């Protein structure tokens, strides 16, 4: 029995430890890239030079803070929020071929399962905002629920367009199809679906220009206002884990995954995901934030009809390809 437990647990342990290390250094990367864009030096003194011990210092400091729970809130729900978000974000990595050759869960519908698991995050966020007993948190989660539910639709449809062209939803098939040419270089449909995916990924991951739930200038800190210490560290890291998962998904579906021009290997998935992440960072530190009603109007009036048109085009193209 112990043997089977070890066989079951070892891949999980390996993936989670590598993942947490990568995500902690994604925080460092963000601060450095932001600093370079703003003509200053980022973290420098902590772990001279270039501040490579900064994530460690942040984590240890957050461990020593007091754990403050608001008086009139339910402490079980209050602690449940961050834990749920972290667990769901990590659980979605079971489907990605990230550290091993084959993913831990190799099923036919892996793409759909990934989207389904990562859309459970909204439960944790809602519980966190509600149980804080704070008006700012309440307004912030109301906005966030509307935003995430609205942007699920273009996300799924933009991921369905390549899948219709390929003919399958599992990651293995998708990777095998892209050995000759990546989806993003496909004539018209590749680019349209990538742009829609990019916009929806920013909205799902709560990044500028769509981060109104943590709009610091209006709502203090949004749903994380009342959290301090390790709970806050869990929120902070879980956001990056979720975003990194979406980046890896983008690199597998649009950029060819482990297939490269010169050599192929699993390491290329991570490199492409990091480049995609850097693109998201450039967008974050250059744009302002839009308002909630403009956000929802943009989605329902412009983005969804465009994605449905793309889907229809993809179906027609596939039909003619199969017919001939």
């Amino acid at each position, binding site marked *: 029995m112990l043997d089977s437990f070890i066989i079951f647990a070892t891949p999980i342990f390996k993936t989670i430890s590598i993942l947490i290390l990568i995500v902690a250094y994604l925080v460092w990367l963000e601060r450095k890239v932001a600093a370079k864009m703003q*003509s*200053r030096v980022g973290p420098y003194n902590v772990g001279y030079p270039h501040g490579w011990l900064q994530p460690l210092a942040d984590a240890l400091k957050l461990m020593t803070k007091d754990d403050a729970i608001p008086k009139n809130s339910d402490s079980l729900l209050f602690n449940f929020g961050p834990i749920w978000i972290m667990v769901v974000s990590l659980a979605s990595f079971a489907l990605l071929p990230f550290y091993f050759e084959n993913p831990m869960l190799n099923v036919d519908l892996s793409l759909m399962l990934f989207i389904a698991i990562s859309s459970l995050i909204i439960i944790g966020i809602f519980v966190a905002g509600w149980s804080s007993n704070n008006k700012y948190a309440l*307004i912030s989660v109301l906005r966030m629920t509307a935003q995430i539910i609205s942007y699920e639709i273009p996300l799924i449809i933009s991921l369905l367009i390549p899948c219709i062209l390929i003919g399958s939803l599992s990651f293995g098939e998708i990777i095998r199809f892209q050995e000759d040419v990546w989806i993003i270089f496909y004539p018209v449909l590749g680019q349209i679906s990538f742009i829609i995916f990019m916009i929806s990924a920013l909205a799902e991951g709560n990044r*500028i220009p769509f981060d109104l739930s943590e*709009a610091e200038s209006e709502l203090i800190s949004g749903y994380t206002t009342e959290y301090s210490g390790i709970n806050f560290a869990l929120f902070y890291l879980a956001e990056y884990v979720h975003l990194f998962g979406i980046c890896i998904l983008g690199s597998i579906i649009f950029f060819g995954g482990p297939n490269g021009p010169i050599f192929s290997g699993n390491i290329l998935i991570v490199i492409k995901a990091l480049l995609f992440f850097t693109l998201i960072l450039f967008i974050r530190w*250059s744009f*302002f934030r839009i*308002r*909630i009603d*403009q956000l929802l109007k943009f989605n329902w009036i412009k983005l969804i009809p465009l994605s449905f048109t793309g889907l229809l085009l993809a179906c027609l193209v596939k039909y003619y390809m199969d017919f001939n």
Partner: protein
Amino acid sequence: MEDRIIERDFGDLAVNMGPQHPSTHGVFRLKLYLQGERINKIESFLGYLHRGVEKLSEKLTYDQLPPVLERDDYLSPTSNSLGFINAVEKICEIEVSRKSSYIRVLVAELQRISSHLVALGTYGLDLGGALGGGASLFLYCFREREKILDVMEDLTGTRFHTNMNQIGGVRYDVKTESINKIKKLIKELKPVLEDYANMVSKDEIFMKRTKNIGIISKKLAEESGGSGPIVRGSGINFDVRKNKPYECYSEFDFNIPLGINGDAYDRTIIRMQENIESLKIVEQIIQGIPSGDIHSRKPLKSPKLTRPPKGSSYFSIESPRGELGFFIVSDGTAIPYRMKIRAPSFSNLSLVEKLLPGTFIADSVAILGSLDPVFGDVDR
């Protein structure tokens, strides 16, 4: 058994944007009554920075007051002392030499540019967040402002609360190396300010967030007592530098930008265009600083205290926020009997109670940022 659904109306949600808030530009408290995301009613509370400067001025002499008054509108300190000193000189009928007038205008215009840069930078923080694109705009504006503060340090010795103006003249003279540094500053700043004006005015998201937001109609602008870029955004052509010229402004050639709609977009664009006009004035000053004395009070070694004759007078200047005025009642001694500061931000901020109801929360931050209040000036 009939099922009855009882619908209760809980009324408005009261949210407090308290005195400590990342984007109320200082200490200001707003209580918003929300219905969903719309604001129905607001209540505003001031006075968190009331330092009683008017009471303090009844204990200090006229010569001791300019440095104290500089802490009022702390984004452009020399305009405060400029206004006060001009008011005293008007009662006492002191003539100031042309050279010191030029130096006073030089410092005032440089501080106008630095104040408008801070206003633009903090507006970026409001719209975009401290962790986002707004922070990039904020840091770029402050980077340019540092160059201006370097020139101020070279001219006067400190970065911004410079005690440059004195009754009867200025304290320090302009050296030749300083003139070269100012020429270099103008050459560096000119392309950069035009660049920022283009970058912000053509940004899609900025236009979406600020066009048709917080429209001040012409009638409201006339009656509310507001002044400065805020009413010029609605098309009213009133600038104290042109309508009632003081110092040597009538010798320089500059325009007053006007807006059309009166929304937040126009107000921000006007401020950026005023920067370019101020830079024109600085260029004209540098090309022709006259020679002469910088003080007009004699003896210089042990000057006597200023004792204005009995009476009252009012004098106003154009600060980056609007019309800043000083009403002085003097009873013949060296200490004022009453000094009233006509603060532009106080009258401008009273527009908040008319502009905010009916907008979204996100718009309230944009409107408050475009009114550009400085709370040292509001509360005095």
